[in-house]
């Protein structure tokens, strides 16, 4: 897909995110908006997905296709929107987000059998381990699919992440690309103040990872180029870590660059102000 087309999808996804969070008056818009380019570029351009007659089909095993895992499950709005817009389930279902009897739980789950989700996430620090298991299963199955996993930067404070970070190079899991959403914010404030992760790139390099950076994580062309580059480095015995520099709340001016919109829903007025900044490109749900 052309960059311009991907940007149009991203604009619609951002509208979905703020509308979903507004609709239930809860959820996490900040990180969702910041990771929109990544998820759109993955699902609409980079990932090889199972299709039948031009329509995506979902099965849990995900053989011979690329897989994506969201470790920082609280940014479920962006994932749900991208999955629906990609065709995994009806976009009308986005209106049920976080409501009783919905398949779109506050944090992603397999429990309600929502197409596109392969593991529950939300309790942080677990997704990289799961992705490593899925990547290892692909190797055992002689399956050439790639496994992608996204984590938050605050999430890097979880100890399990570093167990997984040690495991991956040791077992030469070189069919996996991990991302850290470096937005520099977490619930209690800027990450450097809450718990300074210091130089994550140097840490992962020291652990044996191949580390690359996407400096403009909200520039679609830069993200697409970075994903292409990351894929080119697979298959050489090392896992790939992509440091994705994003702005929390990107695309909605009053939500940008602050931890204050990590987990807060806009009111009616704020919703209108946000939507005025985002073109409706694919039709609202």
């Amino acid at each position: 897909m052309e960059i311009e087309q991907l940007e149009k999808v991203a604009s619609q996804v951002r509208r979905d995110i703020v509308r979903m969070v507004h609709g239930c008056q809860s959820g996490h818009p900040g990180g969702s908006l910041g990771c929109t380019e990544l998820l759109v570029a993955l699902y609409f351009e980079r990932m090889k997905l199972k299709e039948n007659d031009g329509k995506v089909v979902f099965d849990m095993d995900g053989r011979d296709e690329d897989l994506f895992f969201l470790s920082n499950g609280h940014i479920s709005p962006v994932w749900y929107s991208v999955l629906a817009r990609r065709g995994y389930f009806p976009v009308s279902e986005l209106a049920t987000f976080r409501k009783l009897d919905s398949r779109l739980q506050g944090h992603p789950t397999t429990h309600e059998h929502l197409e596109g989700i392969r593991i529950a996430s939300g309790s942080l620090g677990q997704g990289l381990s799961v992705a490593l298991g899925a990547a290892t299963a692909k190797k055992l199955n002689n399956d050439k699919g790639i496994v992608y996993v996204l984590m938050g930067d605050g999430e890097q404070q979880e100890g399990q992440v570093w167990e997984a970070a040690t495991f991956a190079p040791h077992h030469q899991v070189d069919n996996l690309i991990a991302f850290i959403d470096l937005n520099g914010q977490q619930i209690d404030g800027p990450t450097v103040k809450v718990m300074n992760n210091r130089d994550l790139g140097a840490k992962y390099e020291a652990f044996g990872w191949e580390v690359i950076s996407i400096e403009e994580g909200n520039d679609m062309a830069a993200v697409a180029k970075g994903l292409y580059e990351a894929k080119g480095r697979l298959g050489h015995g090392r896992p790939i870590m992509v440091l994705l520099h994003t702005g929390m709340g990107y695309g909605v001016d009053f939500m940008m660059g602050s931890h204050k919109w990590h987990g807060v829903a806009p009111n009616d007025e704020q919703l209108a102000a946000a939507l005025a900044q985002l073109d409706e490109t694919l039709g609202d749900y």
Partner: protein
Amino acid sequence: MKKYTFTEKKDTRSGFGAGMHVLGQQNPNVVALCADLVGSLKLEPFIKENPERFIQCGISEANMIGVSAGLTIGGKIPFATTFANFATGRVYDQIRQSVAYSNKNVKICASHAGLTLGEDGATHQILEDIGMMKMLPGMTVINPCDYNQTKAATIAIADHEGPVYLRFGRPVIPVFTDADQKFEIGKAWMVNEGTDVSIIATGHMVWEAIQAGEILEADGINAEIINIHTIKPLDEEAILKSVEKTGCVVTAEEHNRIGGLGDSVAQVLVKNKLVPQEYVAVNDSFGESGTPAQLLQKYGLDAKHIVEAAKRAIARKQ
């Protein structure tokens, strides 16, 4: 009292290792994972024949559970192995979210459960694991009684779709069940039919219960002994059928009295048929260093304590 004899003593963890050896040959989807305790879990035969299907995780149990959950995506059947303490309490949230809530086909296989790991002491003697695991929706909890039953259970759980907690131990104990037994998950095993008291035991306590049955027989008491190897789902029918006959119960487990087999049985009784129940279990405390036999005696878990509990239960009958 039906006579149970044995020609050898073995540890249940070796039964697990033997089961894994068989699975390695029979089921190409079985993958073994371990957190730096290969020798303790008796995994060498599996690893020797299937090195590509063994994943050494190092001392990183949380990651091991996550990797196991991921392996199921792609059709693998991961057996995640370590000591019971590190397989449950240490990684409860990982099991809860990535395995149980996600309904992943992960087999959590835990050795050195209970007091009888002995000298290592309370840091390693988990007595809360059955409770933690049985509280997780969808989790099957199995605690077999000897080497042969543990081997059979290990083989059986590979064919069961869904998360399983398999608990076994370190001490060598008599091998008294059949070598070629068929293991049915959720089905109680009648060890001895009796009329005066139902002794419902799990794990290492089944052999203690058999010894208790012999002592009771000498005192003129005819004990029914049931081996509950599957604590969840519990064979409620077998329990109720037994208490209809005997009118009182002793539960015996190498676990805290809070949250274990005894509480599961009590729930069944409260709901269906109120009869006196006596607990043989650790009385809400941690363990300590000692030999397995010393610990069972000190913490009230040996045959002698089962006998006393049986007599108390019978005395409480109306």
